[in-house]
């Protein structure tokens, strides 16, 4: 039998049975939609994690907290010497305020911003801000969100006010005139509030000694050891390596870094694949049962027709070929219907995701997805029908025609 005749006959048979094929289209569409949703979602999560990792400098930061021994200056120096570490410093903070006023005699009616000061040296400044700056004792670098606030510009002179205790329960404010040496984009760290300004260590020690009623040298001595540390890797790709070395060398320091969470995204994508895969396989098994039963009923209703064509000379192989072509036509139609349904669903979901500002998770259809969907559909159809086709094509002509 010629393929063209086969397609013509199979096509007319398909059209005459199209109402009965509804359930096949429905189950296959469910399988293909779930498969494509899983595939697209996992791919978009993976892609979004990759773009987050390469675009986000926050991922260079590692925060360390010692939960037993304090971290000594020697340890800090060892950490600074680790390959891939750009900078490392103790995590220290003190509350203060930037006040904008003409001179220190003004007591009322001036503008001020509550900020947190962090002491840094030249290496830290370059690592945090990317600026090649040497801070003088009275220089500060301000979070860029304050830029232009109340006229704050690079070079503007302001007052930095801080608490000064002159006895255990009483104190007052003290202030020092400082110059804004620049602005920087503050990294997002768990231990840092949103208002961090960077100051020279000696200015920081001055402010702390005033708070704790100690001399600057005493406070320096007292602050030799700390329990928290901030480490900056020289590149995002080195963050994991540095964290790994840290974990190996300093078991008592608990590390927290954003890349750790970002690393989880590909794992999350894999989890979507695995869970989605299990669901898709279950649905395929269910589809095989449904399709097998539907096709079984359809062919049962056509036994008479098959008996007739066998009686007029169609061989078992001709009938088998005819039925395979029919199944192929059904499978092709199912691919078109299911991919069309998925496309519409995807457009709808992308509109919803866009409204939620989740552009990175926008779903897409790739060529490989279409190939996979086609493969799954054909695989399901053939698995579901090969036994029935074999059985039907070998029917007993006399019995079928006599029964009718």
């Amino acid at each position, binding site marked *: 039998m010629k393929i063209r005749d086969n397609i013509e006959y199979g096509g007319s048979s398909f059209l005459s049975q199209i109402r009965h094929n509804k359930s096949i289209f429905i189950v296959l569409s469910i399988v293909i939609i779930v498969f494509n949703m899983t595939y697209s979602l996992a791919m978009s999560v993976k892609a979004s994690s990759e773009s987050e990792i390469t675009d986000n400098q926050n991922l260079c930061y590692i925060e360390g907290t010692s939960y037993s021994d304090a971290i000594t200056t020697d340890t800090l120096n060892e950490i600074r010497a680790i390959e891939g570490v750009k900078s490392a410093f103790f995590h220290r903070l003190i509350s203060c305020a930037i006040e904008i006023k003409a001179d220190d005699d003004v007591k009322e009616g001036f503008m001020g911003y509550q900020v947190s000061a962090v002491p840094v040296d030249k290496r830290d400044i370059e690592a945090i801000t990317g600026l090649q700056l040497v801070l003088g004792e009275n220089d500060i670098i301000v979070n860029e969100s304050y830029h232009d606030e109340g006229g704050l510009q690079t070079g503007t002179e302001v007052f930095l006010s801080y608490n000064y205790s002159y006895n255990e329960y009483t104190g007052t404010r003290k202030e020092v005139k400082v110059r804004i040496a620049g602005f920087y984009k503050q990294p997002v760290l768990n231990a840092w509030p949103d208002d961090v300004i960077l100051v020279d260590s000696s200015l920081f020690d001055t402010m702390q000694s005033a708070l704790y009623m100690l001399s600057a040298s005493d406070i320096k001595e007292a602050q030799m050891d700390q329990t928290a540390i901030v480490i900056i890797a020289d590149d995002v790709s080195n963050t994991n390596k540095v964290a790994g070395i840290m974990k190996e060398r300093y078991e008592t320091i608990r590390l927290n870094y954003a890349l750790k969470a970002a690393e989880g995204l590909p794992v999350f994508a894999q989890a979507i694949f695995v869970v989605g895969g299990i669901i898709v396989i279950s649905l395929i098994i269910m589809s095989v049962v449904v399709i097998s039963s539907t096709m079984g009923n359809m062919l049962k209703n056509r036994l008479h*027709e098959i*008996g*007739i064509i066998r*009686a*007029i000379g*169609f061989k078992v192989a*001709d009938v088998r070929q005819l039925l395979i072509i029919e199944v192929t036509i059904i499978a092709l139609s199912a691919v078109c219907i299911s991919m069309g349904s998925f496309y519409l669903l995807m457009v709808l979901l992308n509109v919803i995701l866009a409204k939620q500002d989740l552009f990175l998770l926008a779903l897409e259809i790739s060529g490989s997805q279409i190939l996979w969907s086609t493969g799954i559909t054909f695989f399901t159809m053939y698995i579901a029908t090969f036994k029935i086709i074999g059985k039907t094509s070998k029917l007993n002509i006399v019995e079928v025609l006599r029964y009718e």
Partner: protein
Amino acid sequence: MKLILRDVCKDVTFNDQRIHILTNVNMEIRYGEITAIIGSSGSGKTTLLNIMSLIDRVSSGNYYIGDVNVSSWDDNQKSEFRRAYSSIVFQQYNLVSRLSSYDNVKLPLLVNRRINSSDRRAIVLESLKRLGMEHRKDHKPSTLSGGEQQRIAIARALVNNPATIFADEPTGNVDKGNESIILKAFRDMAEEGRAVIIVTHSETVRDYSNKVFRLKHGEISEVVQ
């Protein structure tokens, strides 16, 4: 050439009981003649026709087409014979209900790779014309009368120019007018050198036949030349 049956038996098992449908049937059928097989219901006429048309197999005995013993042929060989050298006309017409008259008649040609589509169309229309059914070529079986359906079935049987035509009660469900048209068509076919084997109750068919076998309880009881 002849169709020869030698001691053909057909048994079936039903509820663990062996039932003899045909017992030691011996027949010789010549080409160029109409052969009628007559008998009452249950006498084994249709089974005999099914064996001769190779859609059923003998339980014992031999069936020769010419010099070839076809009793042991496999399914493919039998299909090849049915598609190339014989046709069957059924009592219940056995047309495919979803296909038009034209497509029903075309069916046997689908398995003939040597005929191209334009020749195929001409052959189908010629076959329909021969039975006076050309004007009904686009009609589906459900829109045709019993007689018309049988004529379409005969047109289908003739379309691949078979040497042997087997007909099971071809006039059983048709009126006198259609019966006459059908039998004349069979007579023409026999005159063209074909073997026409008709299973029937009808006495009219007997009048058109060159040879009549009377079947009783699965055995040939009488042969009338």
